[in-house]
């Protein structure tokens, strides 16, 4: 059996997972690079605006390379991480990811359903250009990239890519960037009838005080069953967090194969449990 390692979460080093886009009811968006309007369209999939990689980066004049054998996409010399999807036999990435890796500011204008990449613009001028939100030029550094499956994509829709979610109280901000099944971690496999679910997350101390004990995470499934994580195979270590400090890593939960986890719960000694809804 192919090993799927939790360690594959690393930023800029990911083998791309290509789950196809979800659902046939797909909303499309137009794409412009500078003053050129592309014939190809982007799509809105589970709330994320995706654009086709090839026509966009070609129009930008940015180097790119797709290695089908290793299922790797390299843009601007950087191996791409993120929620890539396959749609109509093309590879799509969130427009924010392309903006990050190509180093080209971009904005999504929701009112006109269009994504505009502006190679000459700065982030500030672009944000004010349409009053929209510009894509960051750098991939987020404080949250882990998703773990990915290295299974070959098949035709048709397989599953939805994970949509990052955030939970927050007055002490901690918790961002979950991915949840995926893994078959083996550090030489350990789940027991028969179980599966490993890896949850990639970051935890920031948003209070003004040092947080000594940062709490314990648990996973809840749709049947309201609660699971502790397997600390021996996870890589999310308790650590004293200063104000503003961020810890991140992955938690591995062993759950029955039929479990459908949909909530992450953080229990601390000072606040009521924080529940983060993992599905939109």
């Amino acid at each position, binding site marked *: 059996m192919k090993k799927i390692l939790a360690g*594959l979460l*690393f*930023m800029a080093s990911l083998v791309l997972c290509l789950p196809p886009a979800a659902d046939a009811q797909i909303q499309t968006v137009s794409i412009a690079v500078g003053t050129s309007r592309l014939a190809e369209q982007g799509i809105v999939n589970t709330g994320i605006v995706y654009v086709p990689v090839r026509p966009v980066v070609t129009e930008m004049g940015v180097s790119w390379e797709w290695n089908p054998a290793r299922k790797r996409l390299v843009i601007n010399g950087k191996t791409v991480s993120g929620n890539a999807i396959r749609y109509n036999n093309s590879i799509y990435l969130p427009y924010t990811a392309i903006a990050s890796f190509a180093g080209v500011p971009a904005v999504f204008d929701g009112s006109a359903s269009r994504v505009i990449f502006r190679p000459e613009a700065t982030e500030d001028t672009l944000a004010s250009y349409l009053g929209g939100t510009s894509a960051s030029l750098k991939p987020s550094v*404080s949250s882990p990239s998703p773990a990915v499956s290295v299974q070959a994509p098949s035709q048709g829709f397989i599953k939805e890519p994970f949509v990052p979610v955030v939970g927050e109280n007055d002490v901690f901000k918790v961002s979950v960037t991915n949840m995926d099944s893994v078959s083996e971690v550090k030489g350990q496999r789940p027991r028969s009838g179980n599966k490993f679910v890896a949850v990639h997350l970051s935890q920031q101390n948003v209070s003004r005080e040092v947080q000594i004990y940062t709490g314990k995470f648990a996973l809840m499934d749709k049947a309201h069953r609660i699971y502790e994580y397997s600390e021996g*195979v996870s890589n999310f*270590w308790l*650590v*004293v967090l200063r104000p503003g400090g961020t*810890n991140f890593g992955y938690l591995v939960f062993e759950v029955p194969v039929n479990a459908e986890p949909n909530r992450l719960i953080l229990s601390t*000694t000072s606040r009521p449990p924080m529940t983060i809804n993992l599905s939109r």
Partner: protein
Amino acid sequence: MLKILSMILVCLFASAMLAVPASASEKVNIEMWHAMKAEKNDALESLVNRFMKENPDISVTTKLIKSPDPKMYGNDYACLYRNIIQGLAGGTPPDIAQVYENWTTQFVMIGAVTPFSHFKGADAITQAEINDIFPSFRNACSFNGDMYAMPFNKSIYVMYYNKALFSKLGINPPKTWEEVKAVSKKIYESEGIPGLEFTPSVDIFGNILYTSGGEFIRNGSAVFNDAKGIAAMNYLREMTENNYAAYSYSSYKDFVGGKAGFIIETTSRIGALKNDCKFNYGITFVPGEKKAYLYAGTNLAIFSQDEAKKLASWKLIRFLNRKENNIELAERTGYLPTTLSASESPEYKKFISSNPGYETGIQALKYGVSQPDTAAWESIRGFITDAVMNSLAEGQDAEEAVNAAAEYSNDLLKGFK
């Protein structure tokens, strides 16, 4: 009459007050948390008992923290760490506990541990005591020029090799990584077993990295993705792809079963090896161009907030560090002595003459290097282990794998500043 009675009462009352035993009112109780099991626990217990006899005004309760299920709750030391953190957050820390360097960094940051300079007069640590501690251990316990922890149960990486097999093939223990390759090739080609077998983790990568002149972290940044780090990862790939080396989670078992030519583990294996190994084996330095040997193990720190308990804890630490006790602990547990005087004593020399291998550990200590003390180290260890697995098992390019781990580590280091 009444006056006499009242005087008697007053006297009785006063004597009752005095009758409260001095030892009970003044006895200081301290709690020590540790994760030393079996014979290590026995050794600690008998030393602690002797300490209490020597210090009748101090009572020590030891608490052995054991993981109920390592897969679920991490190993014993992970549980110890969680207990300390929860104790600190809840205002009920231990008085003394074993701590790794990267834990100490955090405890110093929040003022949870007492520096040794706190103790004055007759209780002040002497320069002779400080100088007696192995410098690499001492430095790893020092923050801003003050010691906050005392080296305790230490071991260092060495190479264990199948002497019988080496003799049969007419080969010598390798001294460089190039020699490791040549020797492993010979073993593989003649015996069909790997020369080197290792656990795919940060430790094998670190051993190659450090003995090649590299480092994990320098000036607060991850640097294990420099040319030396990439070369170390490429080396592991090349070795395993050619079957000269093999990775597994059973390298020790395979080695003692004669299924591998050599392994790189800490000296804490020496005791068990004596019983487990049926063939003639040797223990030598980790190969490499540079003498820089990673060590492992914890130190003792004081968490008490109460002055009397702080002092009692400090007395226990000093007692354990005393030459004869340091020797006893080393001989009974297989950990290395932490002081020069203990390691050079006739008693310990006699012990190592009948337990060869410890000598190699002591020699290696002169070149001992500590694991990074950043609070992020546990996570970074995980990132590097993932990089090793991604490179070896998933075929990820070595440079890409170490770069990714370093990038991730640097993000985490920023988040902890």
